[in-house]
């Protein structure tokens, strides 16, 4: 037997999935173990192995691919305990980082923090000014050298930073993405003066227009570099001790995986990769194919993440925001808000109305019903009081929930509003459902899509409780809890389903008509570099797939559209089609008649995505049987609140693990799984398909 394993480390839990040759999925869920996350990694993997009936050593010996989603780099940013970085910039432009184009004061902050002037400040600098050195050198917008690099000056700058204790060096010069010669020379000098130090250049990491974003990227890369490299080395060592000799692959925010050595060099690519695996899974897995375009939602304890899959591919964004710093690397477009099971319910003193989140009770103290000392009411308390959660079967019975504590907490906000605990719970649930629907609306409508054209995947521990409600608010046809209980470890499954991916890109600012030969050569260079790397990784030539893109916009305008550049030789016909495709894509995104043709078309960047396809085990299917579920799958009834009928009624309670393909569960019903719970209201029905997806539809949407 051989296996593919995926492990995803989250803030609270570490999840593992093991896929065997028969297409069966085995789950393992264990507590995360900060700061030594590798402990949780091996615990979860061992647990999943146990579920598959093998020891950890056997599992690792027989594993062909081990893929891993980690928040190690993200945590370094959150806790601001990265390396001491020395930054080297062009003379006269040292302040590019501290100035943050001004917007850094508010980027990524909530609207409440944005409107109040004193409520947001620029973040703690990743590199203090005393660790930034300027060097005489200058290249202009055409890539021509205006001022030669002052090598002696550069050496002195490096020495000073080295003596001041720099553990990592970041180099970012103006226009280096057009002409990297000075950056590369200074990298050499760093390697001579401070051998072994982590060093990163903006032209190699993010060869893109915009010096602030490039500098932020390279500074962050250096900041998280040494500790991420350490973590990956420790992990690789431990794996080889346990008998796993193949490479470890890391989920990157662009929606693929990188081998550990690449990730150690450019750990920036791992930042924000947390929710990416889940979106990738929805794009990759055969079991998701029949649902068409998908909105992937993930509701955990503290946040609600949303991404899109359109035409079988995740939607990408070109901007990342980390600690209010912004940089440009293509990532799977995921938006988040602080709506989760732990979101706190409170009263706004201005309007006297009820509000939910964004503050969360987190894992500690957690919701009031956890009985860990949390007194403030949360969405999980509301779900308990409304009868959706089973106090004796939470997380498969691991934690007993305290109904009395939940009621008391809800009364603390309900009574001042003249509401009982139950009424407060209904109110809070409605509010949080609307918040989630609003976020989805923002992610779709602002990007030119309508949610009614999507199926909604509901992943994460808390999603099944709310899925049907926000789905109905959006007018989407169905909510899917993918692969039943596996939905709760969806990110780990996502990691296991990722392909190797190298994104190569460069700025190329040109007005149409474009120079055919230049474009062919530029794409050729990018493709050759990625192809070479994939072959080195052992990917067979026929498993390599390269797609090309050009970012284009109208002259004098700001909206740029990433336009696919067809495969094959770059000739006149292809260039003509490229222009037409751009115009069509522009109108689709921004509306009819919005193209400013008279200003001409300008290219700003070219990019390739080179994929090394990984083997995907075929997921096990079960033939559809009788629509009536087996009788013993129903374990009783429970009084719970029907959102549509607005009343407490008896819900049938089903053991989800005993439902079979083809079974239909008519609401009102609650389907309990070990790690998640699905609420089926009176007007809803749930169907189990041959993969084990739980598909929920509402009467009027069917």
């Amino acid at each position, binding site marked *: 037997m051989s296996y593919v394993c995926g492990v995803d480390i989250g803030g609270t839990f570490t999840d593992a999935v093991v896929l065997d040759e028969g297409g069966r999925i085995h789950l393992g869920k264990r507590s995360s173990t900060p700061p030594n996350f590798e402990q949780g990694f091996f615990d979860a993997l061992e647990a999943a192995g146990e579920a598959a009936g093998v020891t950890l050593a056997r599992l690792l010996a027989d594993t062909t691919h081990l893929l891993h989603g980690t928040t190690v780099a993200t945590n370094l940013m959150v806790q601001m305990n990265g390396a001491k970085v020395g930054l080297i910039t062009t*003379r*006269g*432009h*040292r*302040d*590019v980082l501290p*100035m*943050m*184009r*001004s*917007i850094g*004061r*508010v980027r990524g902050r909530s*609207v*409440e923090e*944005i*409107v*109040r*002037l*004193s*409520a947001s*400040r*620029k973040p703690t600098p990743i590199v203090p*000014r*005393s660790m930034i050195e300027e060097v005489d050198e*200058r290249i*202009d917008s055409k890539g021509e050298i*205006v*001022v030669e690099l002052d090598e002696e000056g550069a050496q002195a700058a490096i020495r000073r930073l080295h003596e001041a204790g720099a553990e990592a060096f970041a180099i970012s010069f*103006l*226009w280096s993405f057009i002409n990297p010669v000075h950056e590369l020379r200074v990298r050499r000098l760093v390697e001579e003066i401070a051998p072994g130090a982590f060093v990163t250049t903006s032209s190699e990491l993010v060869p893109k*227009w*915009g*010096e*602030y*974003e490039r500098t932020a990227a390279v500074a962050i890369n250096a900041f998280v570099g040494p500790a991420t490299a350490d973590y990956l080395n420790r992990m690789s060592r431990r794996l080889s001790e346990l008998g796993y000799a193949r490479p470890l692959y890391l989920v990157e925010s662009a929606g693929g995986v990188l081998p550990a050595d690449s990730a150690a060099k450019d750990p920036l690519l791992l930042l924000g990769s947390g929710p990416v695996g889940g979106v990738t899974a929805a794009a990759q897995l055969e079991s998701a194919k029949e649902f068409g375009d998908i909105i992937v939602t993930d509701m955990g304890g503290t946040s609600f993440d949303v991404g899109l899959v359109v035409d079988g591919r995740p939607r990408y964004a070109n901007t990342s925001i980390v600690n209010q710093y912004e940089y440009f690397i293509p990532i799977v477009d995921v938006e988040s808000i602080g709506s989760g099971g732990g979101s706190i319910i409170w009263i706004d003193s*201005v*309007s*006297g*109305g009820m*509000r939910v989140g964004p503050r969360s009770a987190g894992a500690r103290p957690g919701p009031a019903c956890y009985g860990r000392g949390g007194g403030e009411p949360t969405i999980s308390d509301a779900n308990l009081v409304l009868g959706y959660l089973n106090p004796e079967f939470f997380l498969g019975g691991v934690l007993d929930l305290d109904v009395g504590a939940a009621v008391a907490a809800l009364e603390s906000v309900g009574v001042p*509003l003249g509401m009982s605990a139950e009424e407060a719970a*209904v*109110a809070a649930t*409605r*509010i949080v459902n*609307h918040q989630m629907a*609003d976020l989805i609306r923002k992610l779709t*409508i*602002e990007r030119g899509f309508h949610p009614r054209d999507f199926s909604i995947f509901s992943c994460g521990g808390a999603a099944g409780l709310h899925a049907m409600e926000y789905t109905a608010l959006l007018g989407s046809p169905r909510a899917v809890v993918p692969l039943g209980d596996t939905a709760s470890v969806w990110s780990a499954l996502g990691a296991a389903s990722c392909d190797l991916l190298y994104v190569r890109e460069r700025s190329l600012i040109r007005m149409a008509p474009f120079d055919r030969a230049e474009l062919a050569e530029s794409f050729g260079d990018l493709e050759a570099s990625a192809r070479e790397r994939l072959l080195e990784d052992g990917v067979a030539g026929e498993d390599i797939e390269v797609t090309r893109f050009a970012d284009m916009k109208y002259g*004098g*305008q*700001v*909206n740029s559209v990433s336009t696919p550049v067809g495969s094959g030789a770059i000739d006149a016909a292809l260039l003509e089609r490229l222009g037409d495709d751009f115009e069509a894509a522009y109108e689709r*995104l*921004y*509306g009819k008649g*919005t193209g*400013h043709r008279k*200003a001409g078309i300008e290219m700003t960047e070219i990019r390739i995505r080179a994929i090394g396809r990984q083997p995907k085990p075929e997921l096990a299917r079960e033939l559809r049987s009788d629509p009536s579920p087996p009788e013993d799958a129903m374990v009783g009834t429970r009084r719970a609140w029907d959102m549509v009928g607005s009343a407490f009624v008896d819900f049938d309670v089903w053991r989800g693990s005993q439902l079979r393909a083809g079974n239909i569960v008519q609401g009102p019903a609650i389907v309990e799984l070990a790690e998640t719970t699905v609420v089926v209201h009176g007007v809803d029905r749930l169907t189990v398909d041959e993969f084990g997806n739980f598909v929920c539809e509402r009467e009027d949407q069917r």
Partner: protein
Amino acid sequence: MSKWDGVNECYVPGPQITIDPSVKLHTVADAEIDPVTYEVIRSSLWNINAEAGEIITRVSGSPIAQYAHDLNTVLLTEDAEYLYTGPYNLNLAVVIDLAVKWILEFRSTDPGIAEGDIFLSTDPFVGASHVTDTVMASPIFVDGEIFGWAASSFHQYDMGGSAPGGYSPDARDRFEEADPIPPVKIVEGEGRVRRDLLEWYLRKSRTPELLELDLRSQIAGCNYSKTRVLSLVEAYGAGTVKAAMRKILDDGERAFVKRLEHVPEGRWSCRGYLESAEPGDREVYTTVLNIHKQEGRLVIDQEGTSPQTGVLSISYAAWRAGVMAPLVRLLCDDTIYALGGALRRLEFKPLAGSLMCASHPAATGNPGIGICQAGSLATVALSRMLSTVEDPDQDIFATAGTSIYPISALTGVDAAGNYFGTIHMEPMAGGLGAFRDGDGQDTGGTVYDALALAPNVEYSEQYFPILFLYRRELPGSGGAGRFRGGNSGVFAYMPHRAEVIDHYTATSGMAVPTSLGLWGGHPGATNRDLVRRGTDVEERLRSGTIPQRLDELSGETEYVPPKERDVLQHPSDVWEVRWAAGGGFGDPLERAPEAVLHDVLNESLEAEDSAALYGVVIADGALDEAATASRRDEMRTARLAGREGEAPPVATGEAIVHLGPTLSLLRDGAAVTLACRSCGADLGPLAGWKERAIVLTESVEAANPEIDEPSVYVDAPIEFHTYHCRGCGRSLDSEVTAGLDSPLDDIAIGAESSDSASIE
């Protein structure tokens, strides 16, 4: 008919507006709304309006929207009260209610207002910030009645007139600027754009294609909001949505009144100056803002402001918008800008024919001067007023940098033969004013735009034929104080691949600082444009060094006046721009020495200024505590040396109000007296107190290392005064004056002091 009809005088709606009976307003709201439905509708309305702004930005593709954020969207009730304004430029938002009220008054009969209509206006006399800001407003009809309005305001690159971009430094009246358009119905019925009006509109501009795209983006924004509001009406019923709208306003009003609850009755004033009404003019002009707190409302007037002149004037709508920007930040932050409720409690009393409320036919094309000035004065007056509220959750702050936008435009033809034209956007990174409990953020943004964004150097160098030598934060530019103002910045560039660049300037705040401090805080840096002529910059670059200061270069430095046309820059000329920084808060001698040390080590302050401004002695990168203590003692003693006579006695009585961190009013029986909050010294009656204090006066350049001698620009002396306690020497307050102006009696407490001029 009032004379304030938007024709010869600016439009100022009366308490009731007259609407043609053919137009019906939807006014029926459910009596009750459950709190959850309310919360859902409230947050939907906020999101709808914010998303409409995103749509405008996206559809237009305009760099003005993307980089300068010069737009805003609003949702209004049927009778044009604000529900929400978007998180964009407030100066553009708080004019739209006026435009819509005017439409209801003057367009409801002819051509009438019907479903699907969209009105367009650029008339500052009616309700636009200036003549290149296009307001578009669309009624939202439910069952044949106007239920509300969806509207936006958006700065256009060019609308004609003598100066490309519209910031004319020398227009003598409005006939030498782009001509304003009073509201016209550009879209009639369901989405049909009137072709005749469209072509007439586009014909005005140097960039008609961009104008058309922007117009279409605003139509898309209106339509988006309209559709979404109607879907709320469909889901919840018109009466329920209207009840939510009413509650947003009522809550906003209640919240506003509550914020004013602990403010005593009284008047707070601020005076500032603008210089140079046209090229060659060396005069200084006065602007005043008075805020009267009266029984849960604020009355705001401009008594004391100079008559309109040259290019310094703005309209009533622009003045009111300028005042509202800091007011919203200070008093509507807890309702995310639901300023409609606050406006019910505000009364604006303009002075016809003044700099801050022009009469026909004054030029009003430079809102970067006038609106910004109104905002700066309002920041100070409101923050002083709110200083009486000793609640740390109540923000107060000194004036933010970019207190007058340093409009410095460049145009020309590059080496490839392409026309270019732009104004610098770097000053969007203003240094924020100091807070009551913390420093202003360096290069942190502006008060009027919550999402202020400065461009990359690589953006400017890609599209304009220039090469930057440096762009950096400017140490010490923020006003000194117990909490210092945020630093602004400076940049310099040379022509690169162009033979000549043609500049014009249309700004102020070069001679007189406009970022004022609070309670003894110093003003922030002034705006400045310098050009170093005939330098060796090209040889210097060839030899491998990049000059970092103008005076490292050969040649002569010229100061560019605040209003000038056709200042030419050749390849050997280096142009440098400095933009205004934030004002300080409190006495600089009270700043924690560690904070001063941190600033010096962080290169936010030059070491030499630490001793001069703060009395903090730093040697070899460390604090010399003993030397600092004795230096500060010396400075305090020097202040007291200016005292005539003995120290005053300690005042007796109960504090009836703290005016701020330095002053209290005490009552002892029938007597009311002002007292120093540090030593308790009796400072006598509030009126005229500054003249009885120890007054230290210096020319204004002594207040901040980044303020120049005013005589470069103007003839009148510009002075910085600090007013010190006659008991302990503490700095109680500070002020900038021009010419022979005496200190302003800027606070009066009690109902009798709050009489204000009434509007005719």
